[in-house]
């Protein structure tokens, strides 16, 4: 009986067919992802082609008028500008605090505190964008108006009236509010990525600095930050990508003004915010197509940012110290 079983040839699925099928299925699923990414570019291009042909690539990107009502002219410049200013501003605000938290967690805090902070950071990173947005609308924006914008504008009215157009109307919903909220939202992300980079610094590097008689801060300056800088910069770049694509909270807080001039406190718009606000109501083909074209521009910028991040982390990651 048993010898019979042993003599019987294995079913074909156990010999070669099974592996072949399995590999094919797995590769097809992998290809789905590649297909998705390519189709995203293709779809955005196809849907946006109407606008791109009408205004030309450069013309669309440089066009500073967005008028779906009367002139039916669409230019993306205000939104590109709004996205860049809010994202760069948010990154500038977030960069040092985010890294400070990561360093404090990794190097200074006792392990119980470090664990608490780490869990909090992950928890906060999980807060949905709309939830931050509702807080921004009902709590943060009014608070900013009362405690910052109004006093500053009142001061300017009395002393430097020429500054008023630059400051803009202090309604609370505007570029500064959106930038600060954006900074708050990317900090946990930047912190987590920085922490990962710091954790990759080998213990030997730290010990080498300790053994030279360095204080804690000197160890961080001498061994930790230089070693982790590639990871930190790549993480910062990814956070920048996050800021560019962040949609809901910004759309809820930026005030949604589609045309220049933008002012410091006053309303503005970003690429994602204009898509969210107008896509559902857009009726004309040209309007829809222009929104898709903005999506394509957003795609291109995100692609560049992500590829640069990948490049940085590969280029600056350190192998030298561990040559053997």
């Amino acid at each position, binding site marked *: 009986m048993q010898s019979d079983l042993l003599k019987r040839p294995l079913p074909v699925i156990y010999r070669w067919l099974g592996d072949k099928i399995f590999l094919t299925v797995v590769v097809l699923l992998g290809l789905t992802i590649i297909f998705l990414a390519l189709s995203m570019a293709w779809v955005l291009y196809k849907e946006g082609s109407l606008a791109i042909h009408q205004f030309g690539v450069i013309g669309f990107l440089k066009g500073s008028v967005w008028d779906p009502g009367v002139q039916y002219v669409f230019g993306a410049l205000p939104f590109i500008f709004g996205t860049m200013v809010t994202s760069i501003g948010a990154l500038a605000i977030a960069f040092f605090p985010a890294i*400070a938290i990561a360093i404090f967690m990794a190097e200074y805090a006792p392990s119980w505190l470090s664990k608490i902070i780490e869990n909090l950071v992950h928890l906060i990173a999980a807060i949905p*964008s709309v939830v931050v947005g509702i807080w921004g609308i009902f709590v943060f924006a009014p608070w900013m108006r009362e405690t910052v914008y109004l006093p500053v504008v009142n001061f300017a009215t009395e002393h430097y009236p020429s500054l008023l157009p630059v400051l803009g109307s202090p309604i609370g919903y505007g570029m500064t509010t959106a930038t600060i909220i954006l900074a708050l939202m990317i900090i946990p992300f930047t912190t987590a990525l920085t922490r990962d980079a710091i954790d990759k610094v080998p213990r030997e590097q730290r010990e080498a600095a300790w053994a030279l008689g360095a204080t804690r801060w000197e160890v961080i300056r001498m061994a930790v930050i230089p070693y982790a800088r590639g990871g930190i910069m790549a993480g910062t770049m990814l956070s920048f990508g996050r800021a560019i694509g962040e*949609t809901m909270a910004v759309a809820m807080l930026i005030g949604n003004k589609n045309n220049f001039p933008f002012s410091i406190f006053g309303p503005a718009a970003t690429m994602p915010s204009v898509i969210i606000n107008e896509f559902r109501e857009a009726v004309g083909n040209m309007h829809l197509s222009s929104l898709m074209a903005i999506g394509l521009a957003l795609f291109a910028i995100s692609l560049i940012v992500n590829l640069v991040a990948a490049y940085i982390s590969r280029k600056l990651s350190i192998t030298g110290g561990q040559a053997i």
Partner: protein
Amino acid sequence: MIKPVKSLKQRNLRDRVMESLLVFSTILVMAPLLIIIGYVVVQGASAINADFFIHELGSPARAMQGRPTGLVHSILGTAVVDFLALIIAIPVGLGAGVMLSEYPDHKLNPMLRIINDTLNGMPAILKGLLAFALIVKPMGTFSGLAGGVALAFVMIPIIARSTESALMSIPWTIREAGLAIGLPRWRVVLSTVMPAAKTGLVTGFLIAFARAAGEAAPLLFTSFGNNYLPNHWTGMIMGPVDTLPQRLYSLAISPYKEWHAMGWAAGIVLLAFVITLFITARMLTKEKKY
């Protein structure tokens, strides 16, 4: 002995100053973020009641006249759309993860890895536009299915990455042991490697789920939103359907006070849901590690 220029006192002082700066910025940043959570919990808890879970929203008039309204349709819709997204995303993400980790020499892998990471970094709103063009346009209507597909696009790259790292954490010797007793590769992967990596895989699903469950941007022009429950359950999939994040956005930007309160209530439910998912995921990882 070379004489030091900076005394030890100076250097220690610098160390202390830097430490205080770090503590200061940690507090400075954590405080507002905790305040956000606190506000949502306090405001949401005062706005939430039993009606919230058993009635549908209806027109603004309904809320203003004080008739009972709630978001039961959004909660059900979220469940349907998220579930659809998971069903679509898990096979694709899992397959790609298996390809990355079990066939490390495959020619396509370097490209797949870069594209997957890039896709992960793409704004969710673009995934919504893609689902709009692929599903909504051909179908001619906004639908829960389109919303599910859009959220699946958010989940797929996350699941692929987490699957890869979960499978990679299983030592190669386990695979070699399986191959050595004559099992074919697919059996080794399916019945040894994947069961061993079970916790890691599930954690990845949960994290992807939590990320997608909080997204509103891709849903606004795919599942669109709906103030009422569809007449038939198929309407959840084939027609426009409400979801919590998208409804929260609509409520918050609406001009009605009653709806603002309901927005806070939606906020606490959504936050509780997402945070529960995250805490479960983190507890699972801890279990695995220690």
